[in-house]
C-alpha cells in the first residue's frame, strides 16, 4: 500500500498527468500520448494511481480543468483508478468511454499524428477486455467485454479504413480484431474485415507496416487452414514466416505451428532440427510416421497430442495425412518387392499389405485394405489399378507413387 499522500500532492500529480495528456494532444505528440494512455501495462501502484486513490474527487478536477476534453480525461482517470484497484470490469467500461471520446477526437484530426495513440487504445481495450472477462468469469458473470471491445474496434476500423493517410493504421486494428475473434471463436466475423482490406484498390497491401502484414498473414493463413485451403494457407503462412522478425522466436514458432501441418499435407516434410529449434516436437512423430509409412505411429501421435491439436485446429489436417502414410507403406513394400523379385515388382498382392498392417497392429480386414488401395488410386497417390478378382494392386511402370509437389491430397 502506498504511503500516505497529502491531498495537495495528489492534486498536483493528477493535474500534472492531465496537463501532460492535454499537452501531448495540443502538440500532436502521438508517442507521448500513447505512453500516457496505456492503462493495462501499468503496475498495480503508480504515483498517479496513488494520487487518484487519495483524491477521490478527481473526475471533477479533470472536468473543471479541461472541460473540452472531459469526455476523454474523466473516464481515463476512472479507468486507471479502477485498474489499480484490480477492478478490471470497471476499468474496461471506463476505458471504453474514454476510447470512444478519443475516437471522436481522432476522427476530427486531419493528420494521422495520433496513430500511435490510436493503436495503443486498440491494444489497451483488448487487453483490458480480456482481463475484465477473466474477472467476470471468475465471479460467475457473463464475460462479454471482449465482444464489446470487438464492436468498438470495428468502429475504429471504420474510422481508419478510409481513403487518406489514416488507412495505414487500419491493418493494426484489423489484427487486434483477429485476435479478439479468434479468442471468442467467432472467426467468421473476420471475413468482412478481410474483404475490406483485400479489395481496397487505393491502398497497396505492401504499404502497410511489416509487423502488421505479418500478423495479418498469420491470421488469414490460419483461417485458410480451417477452410482446408492448404495452398492459400501455405502461401500466407510462408509470407508471414519470411517477413517475420527473425529475432522473435515465439512468433516464428506460432507461424510454424500452422505452417508445418500445412506443408505436411502438401507433401513437404520439415527437418528434425527445425522442430527441435522451435520446440515443435509434437510434430516429430507425425513426420516420422510419414517417412516410415508407420500408420500406428501416426495414430499414436495424434492420440497423444489430441487436445493440443484440436485446440489449435490442426487435428483434422493431421488426420488427413493417413492416406499419405498408406502411400508410403505401399511404396516401401514395392521397394522391397522390387529387390526380391524384380519381375513382379509392379504387382503387389493385397495379402502383403494386409500382413504389413497386421505387423503395425492395425486391425483391418481385406476388404478395408482393398478399399484403402482403391482410395489411394482414386486420390492419385498411386498410379495403377486394382484387380479385384486376383486381389492384386497393379502399379504403373512410370512413377507409381507420384509426389504431391505442393498439391494437397
Amino acid at each position, binding site marked *: 500500500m502506498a504511503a500516505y499522500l497529502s491531498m495537495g500532492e495528489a492534486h498536483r500529480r493528477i493535474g500534472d498527468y492531465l496537463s501532460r495528456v492535454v499537452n501531448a494532444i495540443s502538440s500532436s505528440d502521438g508517442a507521448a500520448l500513447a505512453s500516457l494512455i496505456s492503462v493495462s501495462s501499468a503496475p498495480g501502484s503508480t504515483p498517479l494511481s496513488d494520487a487518484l486513490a487519495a483524491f477521490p474527487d478527481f473526475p471533477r478536477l479533470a472536468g473543471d480543468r479541461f472541460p473540452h476534453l472531459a469526455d476523454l480525461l474523466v473516464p481515463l482517470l476512472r479507468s486507471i483508478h479502477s485498474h489499480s484497484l484490480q477492478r478490471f470490469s470497471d476499468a474496461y467500461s471506463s476505458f471504453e468511454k474514454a476510447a470512444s471520446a478519443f475516437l471522436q477526437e481522432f476522427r476530427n484530426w486531419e493528420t494521422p499524428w495520433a496513430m500511435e495513440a490510436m493503436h495503443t487504445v486498440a491494444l489497451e481495450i483488448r487487453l483490458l477486455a480480456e482481463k475484465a472477462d477473466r474477472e467476470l468469469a471468475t465471479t460467475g458473470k457473463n464475460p462479454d467485454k471482449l465482444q464489446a471491445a470487438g464492436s468498438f474496434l470495428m468502429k475504429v476500423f471504420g474510422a481508419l479504413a478510409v481513403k487518406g493517410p489514416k488507412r495505414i493504421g487500419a491493418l493494426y486494428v484489423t489484427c487486434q480484431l483477429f485476435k479478439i475473434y479468434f479468442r471468442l471463436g467467432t472467426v467468421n466475423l473476420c471475413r468482412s474485415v478481410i474483404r475490406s482490406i483485400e479489395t481496397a484498390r487505393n491502398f497497396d497491401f505492401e504499404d502497410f507496416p511489416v509487423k502488421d502484414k505479418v500478423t495479418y498473414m498469420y491470421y488469414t493463413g490460419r483461417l485458410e487452414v480451417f477452410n482446408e485451403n492448404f495452398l492459400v494457407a501455405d502461401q500466407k503462412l510462408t509470407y508471414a514466416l519470411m517477413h517475420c522478425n527473425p529475432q522473435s522466436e515465439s512468433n516464428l514458432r506460432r507461424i510454424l505451428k500452422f505452417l508445418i501441418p500445412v506443408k505436411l499435407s502438401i507433401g513437404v516434410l520439415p527437418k528434425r532440427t527445425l522442430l527441435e529449434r522451435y520446440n515443435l516436437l509434437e510434430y516429430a512423430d507425425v513426420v516420422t510416421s510419414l517417412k516410415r509409412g508407420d500408420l500406428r505411429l501416426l495414430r499414436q501421435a495424434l492420440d497423444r497430442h489430441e487436445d493440443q491439436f484440436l485446440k489449435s485446429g490442426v487435428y483434422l489436417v493431421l488426420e488427413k495425412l493417413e492416406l499419405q502414410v498408406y502411400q508410403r507403406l505401399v511404396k516401401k513394400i514395392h521397394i522391397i518387392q522390387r529387390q526380391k523379385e524384380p519381375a513382379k515388382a509392379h504387382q503387389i498382392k493385397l495379402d502383403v499389405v494386409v500382413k504389413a498392417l497386421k505387423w503395425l497392429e492395425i486391425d483391418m480386414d481385406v476388404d478395408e485394405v482393398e478399399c484403402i488401395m482403391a482410395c489411394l488410386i*482414386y486420390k492419385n497417390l498411386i498410379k495403377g489399378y486394382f484387380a479385384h478378382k486376383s486381389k492384386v494392386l497393379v502399379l504403373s511402370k512410370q512413377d507409381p507413387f507420384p509426389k504431391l509437389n505442393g498439391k494437397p491430397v
Partner: protein
Amino acid sequence: MASHAAGASAGSDAPHAEVVSMGQTNPSPYPPLASSHQAWSSVSGSATVSWNNQVDKPSQDTVYYDPQRDVSVAGGNQNVGVSASHAAQSSMGITDASHSQLPYSSSVPHGYNPVEYANYYYSYPQATNDSSVQQGANQHPGAAYQPLTSFQNSGSYIDPTSNTYYNAAGHQTVPGYGSSSYYYQNNTWNGGSSGNNYAQSYQNYSSSDTNALQSSTSMPANSVPYQQQYNQWPYYYDQSVPNASSNPVAGNSTTDTVAVNNPSGYSYPNSQPPPPGTTPWRSNSVASVAPPMQAPGVSGPQNQYTNQAQDHNSNQATGVQWSQNHYTYQAQAYPQKTMNLSHAPLSNPEDQQRTAAPIGPSSNTLSNHVSENFQPNLQGSMTTNASSESKIQIPTNPRIAPGFSMVIPKSEKKNLGADLSKKPAYVSVSVPTNDAQGTQVGPDAVMFCSLLRLGNIHRSIPFSLRNYTIRNLNRCKDDAQRTACTRIMEEIVRKAIADGTILTKNWDTEPLLPLPELGMTEASDSDKEQDLTKYYASATALANSPEEKKRREHRSKRFERSQDSSLKSRISSANKDAMANMHTRRAISSHLSRTYEEGTRAVEDMDWDALTIKGTCQEIEKGYLRLTSAPDPSVVRPEDVLEKALAMVETSQKNYFYKCDQLKSIRQDLTVQRIQNGLTVKVYETHARLAMQAGDLPEYNQCQSQLKRLYAEGIEGCYFEFSAYNLLCVMLHYNNKRDLLSSLASLSKEAKQDAAVKHALAVHAAVLSGNYVLFFKLYKKAPNLNSCLMDLYVERMRFEAMKCMSKSYRPTVPVEYVAQILGFLRTDSEGCTADGDDGLEECEKWLKAHGVVLSVDSSGELQIDMKASSATLYMPEPENAVAHGDATLAVDDFLARTS
C-alpha cells in the same frame, strides 16, 4: 418539403392553385409555396366547404361582403388602437342591426383574424424563405382574400354565380367556425364542463332564424378561438419564448369578443363560448400566447405581416418540421374523409350538438364515434389529459379537414341544396366537417393526434421516427390496438427525448412493436355504429380510468427508470392482470432492444419469475400452434399433465406428424412455463429420436441445440448418446470443420469411452479417409439411432465409393461384392448371402440408376464394367425431390404418411 406531402394532398394541389389564381387578385404567393402549403390551404378549405354551400343564401347580396372586405383591412387598423375601442365598435355594429351589413363589419376585425390566421399559415411554410414572406406582406390588400380564395372550394362548390369575394367572406367565417369548433375541443379537454356549455350554446345559435345575425354573432364567437388558434401556432413553436406583453393583449382579445357578443342579443349562448374557451387557454399558456395576439389585434395589417414574418423567422427551424409531420398525416386522413362524407348528416342542430361533443373525442385519439352519451364520460376523463395535449389538438383538425374539401362529392352538394331550402344556411357551417371528423376520423385521427401529442413533447421529431410510428400504427388491426400502440409510441418517444436519442437513433431499423392485443377487443367491432359508440366509449372510459392512469404512470416511470435497476417490484405490481402483463412485456421488450448495453444488466435484474405463467389446462392432448401473443394460462398444461402427455405420445400408435405436433406443443408449454428439468430433457430427447427416425433433420437440430444447452446446465439425460448424434450430425451433414473441431474438443475422456461416441468417431475416421467399407460396416453395427443419421449419408457415400472404385478397379468387379461392401446386403462381410437376393436386386437397381455399366461374364455372374462405368456414372435427381426442397411438405407425400 414537397416530398413530405403525401400523394393525396399532392394530387389535390392542382385544383387549389387554379381556384386561387382565378379568384385571387394576387396569385403570386402561391407559386413559391410548396405542396406543404397546399396542405394548409386545403385544411381551411375543408371547413369552408360546408359553410359555403349553405351560407350562399344568407349572404345573397354581394354588397354584404364587399364592405366587409374593405373593412377587414380597416378593421385591422382599428385594432391597432386600443382594444377597448375596437370592442366598442364591434359591439355597436352588432347592436345596430342584427340583419344589416354592419354586424358583419363589426365582426370584421375578428373575421380578419381568421384571414390573417390563414395567411399566417400560408406564409408559414415560406418561413424558410424570407422573400416569400415579404411577398405576403406586400400584397396585403389582396391578402385578405388570398387565403380565402385559396379555399379552393369556393370555386368548385359555391354557386357559380356568387362572386369570389363573396365567397371569400364565407370562407372567412368558415375557418373561424371550423377552428372554433376545434376550440371547443379544448374546452372539453381543459375544463370538463366548458365543452358542454359550448355545445349547448351552439345549438342555440342554430335554432335562431336570422341568418345574417347568426353569422355575425357566430363570427365574433369564432374569432376568439381563431385568434387563439393563431396564437397557438407560435406557441408551439415558441414555447420557450415567453413575451411579457402578452397578457394585456390576450386580455384584450378575449374581452373583445365577449363585448361583441353580448350586445348582439345572443348574450347567453354566444357570450358563453368565448369565456370557456379563453379562460382555459389563457391559463394554459398565458405568456406564450402573447406574440401572435399582438400581431392580429394590436398592430395594423402591415405590421401584422411583419410580425408574422418575425414569427416565422423565429419559428422557422421548428416550424418546418412541424409542417412535415402534418402533411403525411393529412394524406392519411384523406380516405377517411371521403367515406365520411357519404353519410355525414349535415346541417342538423342535433348534429351540431353531436359533433360538438365528439370533436373532443376525435382529437382525443380514443373514441371517435361517440355521440352525446359519451360526452359526460369524456369530460370526466379528459380533464386528466395534460393541457399540452389539448392544445396540440387544434392543428389536428384543420389538417384533417383538407381531405374533406377535396373529396366532397356531388351528392353533398345536393344535400346542401336541400338543406338550404329548409334551413338557415349557416347552420351547417361547421357541421359537416366536424361531424365527419367526429364520427369517422377514427384511426387516422388517433394516429395523427398521437403524433401531435408527441410533437408537443419535442418539437423536432425526425422524419424517420414519424415513419416508424406510422409503420407501427399501420400494423394495427383495429382502433383499440392502435390506441395501445399509440400509447406505447408516446412512451418510446418520451423516453427517446429524455435520453436524447430521438435524433440520433436510427428509427428506420428500430424493430416494430409487437402487435398489442387488447383484452377488450372482444367488444364487437361490428359495423353497427351503436356498437362502435359503446365500444369506444368504454375504451375511452377504460383508457382514462384512474386505474389505467396509474398504469400509464407506471409505464412512463419505467421508461424513465431505464438507468436504475429496480424493475422488479414495479413489473410484478404491474402484473396484476393480463393486460398490464402484456403492456409490461411490450415495454420490456422494447426497452431491451433499445438499450443494448444496459440490456444485459436489465435482463439480469429482471424478475422473470414474475412474468412466468402457471398453466391450468388439464387436457393431455394439444396441438401445436405458434404463439403470437402472451400465453394464456388456461390453455397451458402444468408439468404433471405434460408428463402424461409425453407418455401418451411415446405409446401412441399414430404417425410421426401427429407425434411431432404433440411434442412441439409440449415443448411450447414447457417453454412458456420455463420448466427446465429432467422432463424437459426427456421431451427433447424423445422428439429428437423421433425426428431422427423420420429423417426430419430440421426438427432434430432444434432439439439437439436445446439439449446441448440443457446438458450444459447440468440436467441429467442421455448425454453420451446425444453427443454421438451431435458428432455424426456435424460431420455428416454440416461439413463445417470448425464445428466439428469444437465438437471433438468438447468430448470428455469418459465420453470417448462410450460405445456410441466411439462409433461416431470411427464413422468420422471412415468418412475422412474415404473408407467406404468401414463406413458400411459401422452402418450395420450402429448403436442407438446412429444409423438413422448415417442413413441420410448413405446415398452420398455409395456414390463416392462407386466413383472411387470405377477409377481404381480394373477390369470388372462383381455386383455381389459391391452389394456387400456398400451395405445392400443385410449380412456381415464374412457371412454368406443368406437373404441376399433382394439386396442384390436392390443393388443392381441402384447401380443402374446411377449409370453403372453392367455385364455378365462367362460364368454367368453379373459384373460391373469399371472402365465404362467411370465415364457414365452420375448422381440421379432424388426421386422424391420437390420444388420447395422439403419432401415432407409435398401434399401427396403428407397424405400418404398421415393416412
